[in-house]
């Protein structure tokens, strides 16, 4: 298939592959902890927060990014740190913040004469329209995320698994939680801008959940999640080129398919096991 090989001759495809693999790697690594901490919907929730920000930016005639980047990052950070007080469930916190942002956004839009931008333009990035700078940015972020994650891997596990124990035995849980929240906030916010909210949400949940179907240890789950994510990204983007399908949605659909296969495999294998006995 020379046609498929041809795709690398387009600079935008090369950029998409490079940036996408970087983002896929970073998000899927963080995804395992996010899913376990009940933050599966964080991507979706933050996209609503950014709608609220855009509405306010338009009302104040400020630059949309100048408002949304810091506010969304702060929300992500807040969401992740809220969990620790254990007073609000992770998913409930997301629902609260995202619904409230939507409501505020709708009210602000109605109070002002209107907006200057189509919000969807700002919320849905596209992996295909990534610039050189964006690509470098995402690679830098991915390298930082993967590096810090690897170095903190065991500590992130300990804190996610049993925070009181870690705290009691002298681990600086605050530092690790803060670092984790920071990495996540940056990855999601930048990722959402570059590759779109849909793709980011998809990468955060599908690979970790698929990996958790079969992996019994945190390390295996994390590594498998990263592998699934990168492979699905590659295959999805290629599929998008070959079959002329939307890029981000193809990657997500492929991730979903892998999850379903893993899920079914898990069910079947346990059924077979049962019969064997």
């Amino acid at each position, binding site marked *: 298939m020379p046609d498929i090989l041809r795709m690398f001759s387009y600079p935008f495809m090369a950029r998409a592959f490079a940036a996408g693999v970087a983002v896929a790697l970073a998000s899927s690594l963080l995804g395992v902890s996010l899913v376990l901490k009940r933050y599966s919907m964080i991507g979706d929730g933050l996209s609503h927060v950014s709608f609220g920000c855009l509405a306010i930016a338009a009302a104040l005639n400020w630059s949309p990014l100048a408002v949304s980047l810091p506010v969304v990052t702060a929300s992500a950070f807040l969401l992740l740190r809220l969990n620790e007080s254990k007073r609000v469930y992770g998913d409930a916190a997301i629902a609260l913040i995202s619904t409230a942002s939507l409501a505020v956004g709708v009210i602000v839009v109605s109070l002002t004469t209107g907006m200057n931008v189509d919000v969807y333009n700002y919320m849905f990035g596209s992996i295909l329209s990534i610039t050189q700078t964006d690509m470098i940015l995402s690679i830098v972020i991915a390298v930082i995320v993967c590096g810090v994650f690897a170095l903190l*891997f065991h500590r992130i596990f300990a804190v996610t698994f049993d925070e009181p124990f870690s*705290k009691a*035995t002298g681990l600086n849980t605050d530092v690790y939680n803060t670092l984790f929240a920071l990495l996540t906030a940056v990855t999601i916010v930048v990722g959402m801008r570059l590759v779109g909210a849909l793709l980011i949400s998809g990468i955060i949940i599908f690979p970790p959940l698929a990996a958790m179907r079969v992996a019994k240890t945190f390390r295996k789950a994390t590594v498998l999640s990263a592998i699934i994510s990168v492979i699905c990204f590659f295959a999805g983007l290629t599929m998008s080129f070959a079959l002329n399908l939307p890029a981000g949605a193809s990657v997500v659909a492929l991730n979903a398919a892998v999850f379903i296969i893993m899920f079914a495999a898990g069910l079947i294998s346990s059924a077979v096991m049962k019969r064997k006995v």
Partner: protein
Amino acid sequence: MRELLICKGATFSYEGMAVIKEADFTAFEGEYLCVTGENGSGKSTLIKGILGLKQPAAGKIEYAGGLKKREIGYLPQQAAVKKDFPAGVLEVALSGCLNGMGLRPFYNKADKERARECLELMGVYRLKNRSFGELSGGEQRRVLLARALCSAKRLLVLDEPVSGLDPSASRELYDTVKMLNEDRGITIIMVTHDIDAALTYANKILCLDCGKAFYGTPEEFSASHEGKKLYGGHRHA
């Protein structure tokens, strides 16, 4: 003997209701302190106070003798077991070694050896590749004990360690703790409802009972009013 932990008039309360009122005691290095008392008398609360997981409403709990948090091992009474959490038994035990690692990011040979040893002491090394969430209640308890042993350098705090353990595991646990206390000089603070064991092994007993506390040696405790009440009714007495 050096002081290790000084509790000065510590009061703990939930939503304005005090459960421990002005507890005063000092734990010395190398001691074996058993904490007993009725359900709801505030034992776990005190433990959380000692570990800095709960702030006292009044008074204070201080570390002395250079004790640092990362020299402490801890077994919680109830670990929030997350069923679907992909946590390997070995990973859980190893996480007890983290507090001795300083800034080193990965486990080294010694850590792995220590984790293996602790798991073997608790008789669960053969489960090392299993997922923690799938284990039986007692097996989970044993793994968490192994983790606590891994992290204990100078002080080991155990909240009802034998609950859920079978008799032979309990026996081994008591032996292990005794060995740690006597041979390695690790100070022990153990919450337990097993008065027999407390009287046998401990050299200090703290009995919390509805606000007022008894603190003294096992002999004093046996003679005391609280001790009589608890021990007198005990089946094996």
